[in-house]
């Protein structure tokens, strides 16, 4: 088998898998089920091998057993303490035993403690700059123009800098909307105390509406993403496989 024939065979297998999986659009069938299970099996098997070769072999096994001296390379001592990780990890499987599942909690407790500690630092790094950024000016510094004047065609840096140094009413309005959204959505999540103020109740209702607008935008973006996946699969079947693979091979 030549290299071109092998590539075409690979492309054909993938195209058949794609068509097999899409066949569920017509109705539930055995071809779909076959490819679904074949995919799960392949991914699971590959993952096990990959975790060993890409990670465990170098980062755990080789550190534990060390290496013998080779031409020009010194021996590396093994650290047998790494072997303790095996029984520790296996404790996790005691979750299936009614009598001994307390042992699995040792491991879970360790992981929870580790995760929670790391989260302290992560929380501030992730949200600190966002909190700082949410403090925005809401009062315009100029009313010469409602929107930011265009700088296209300007060559004088001082002139461009002067335009950009102001806060225009349109920008201030955007900041006001951002601030109202932020505060109203935050007020929606006040569950600890009973809110009796009519104003606050209406304000948190506004937060709920704005949240729904946000979810709608995310949903629209999600639909766009799903369509892109379909387009890519169609590109694969019709162009990469059929036109550039099969037809090209047939035409020699």
């Amino acid at each position, binding site marked *: 088998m030549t290299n071109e024939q092998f590539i075409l065979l690979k492309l054909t297998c993938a195209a058949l898998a794609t068509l097999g999986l899409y066949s569920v*659009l*017509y109705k539930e069938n055995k071809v779909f089920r076959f490819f679904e299970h074949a995919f799960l099996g392949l*991914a699971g098997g*590959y*993952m096990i091998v*990959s*975790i060993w070769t*890409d*990670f465990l072999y*170098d*980062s755990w096994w*080789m*550190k534990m057993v060390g290496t013998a001296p080779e031409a020009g390379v010194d021996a590396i001592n093994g650290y047998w303490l790494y072997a303790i990780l095996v029984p520790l990890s296996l404790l996790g499987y005691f979750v299936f035993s009614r009598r001994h599942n307390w042992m699995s909690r040792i491991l879970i407790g360790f992981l929870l403690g580790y995760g929670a500690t*790391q989260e302290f*630092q*992560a*929380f501030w*790094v*992730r949200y600190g*700059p*966002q909190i*700082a*950024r949410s403090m925005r000016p809401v009062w315009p510094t100029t009313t010469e123009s409602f929107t930011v004047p265009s*700088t296209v065609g*300007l*060559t*004088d*840096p*001082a*002139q*461009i*800098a002067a335009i*950009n140094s102001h806060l225009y009413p349109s920008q201030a309005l955007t900041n006001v909307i951002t601030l109202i959204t932020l505060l109203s959505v935050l007020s929606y999540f006040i569950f600890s105390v009973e809110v009796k103020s009519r104003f606050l109740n209406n304000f948190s209702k506004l937060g709920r509406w704005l949240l729904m607008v*946000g979810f709608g*935008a*995310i949903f629209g*973006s*999600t*639909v*766009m*993403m799903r*369509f*892109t*996946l*379909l*387009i*890519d*699969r*169609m*590109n694969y079947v*019709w*162009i990469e496989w059929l036109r550039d693979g099969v037809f090209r091979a047939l035409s020699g």
Partner: protein
Amino acid sequence: MNFWDRIQKVDRRVLYLILILTATVPLFFNKALPNVPDDSSESLYLSLARLQEGDTVIIQTDWTNATRGENGSHFEALIRALIAKKVKFALVSAYSPLAPAVARDVIGRINGDLVAEDKQPYRQWDDWVDLGFFPNMDAAAIGMRSDLRQIIQERKETDPQGQQRSVLQSPVFQNIKALGDIKLYMVVTGTNSINSIVARLSGAVPIGGMVTGVMGPELLVYYDAGQLVGLANGLKGVYDLEQMMSEPYTYVSKAGVREEFEPILPGFSGRGTRYYLTLTLTLILLVGTVVIGNLAMVFSGRKTRRPR
């Protein structure tokens, strides 16, 4: 049965067929649509355009063929840009063990194109290395921040003499002493793995994102707060980048400082350009069918009862 009743009873398989045709036929016409790049895409492009020959970039490639339509196009545009600018890069994966192989396939295909154009292929070890899969990226990122070299020293690559050596000895990491020497940390992801990178590496290295349309809206806050230097969001992000890469680009800062960039890949037209017209038409179809479906609901004789 009137017209609207008949519309209401159209078999869903007919709709699937129309959708498949709409998602297929425009692919054969490689037509670019008019476009204004998003701010976040422009910022990302600026970070790429400012890279110099010999700089090193880390690319966290957290996608597989499941999101190839968007992330595959992101990754391909990114790799082509880095190769054109002779920037060295290291791949790292955290989401799926399948991801490194998928990324290597794309680089292999791009190298095939370079050879076909009588150009030098981008060589593994000399120009790029694969650091492989890190099952716990949180821990790996914390380690990278404190001592990058220690975290990756055990990762091995085959040198041109066929010897397995530590990636630290490759030309890619020749001038890299710490994470701060990395010019850009790009995350190409179909998941939320970029969250942990922002949480662990923000401030230590410039981070850029190339994400799917699902993740994009959620991540714009990171861009807005300056935690990401740029963000290519979904297929629109790919299209923006491809367009900017193929044409001369001028950036004028708020202080009025002007930077001129030559096109990274003159006349380049990739998957983003090819898919964008098709995506636009499928979205028009979606909006059209939603409108027609609702009209049919109103005008047909069928009454629907609202759930109480």
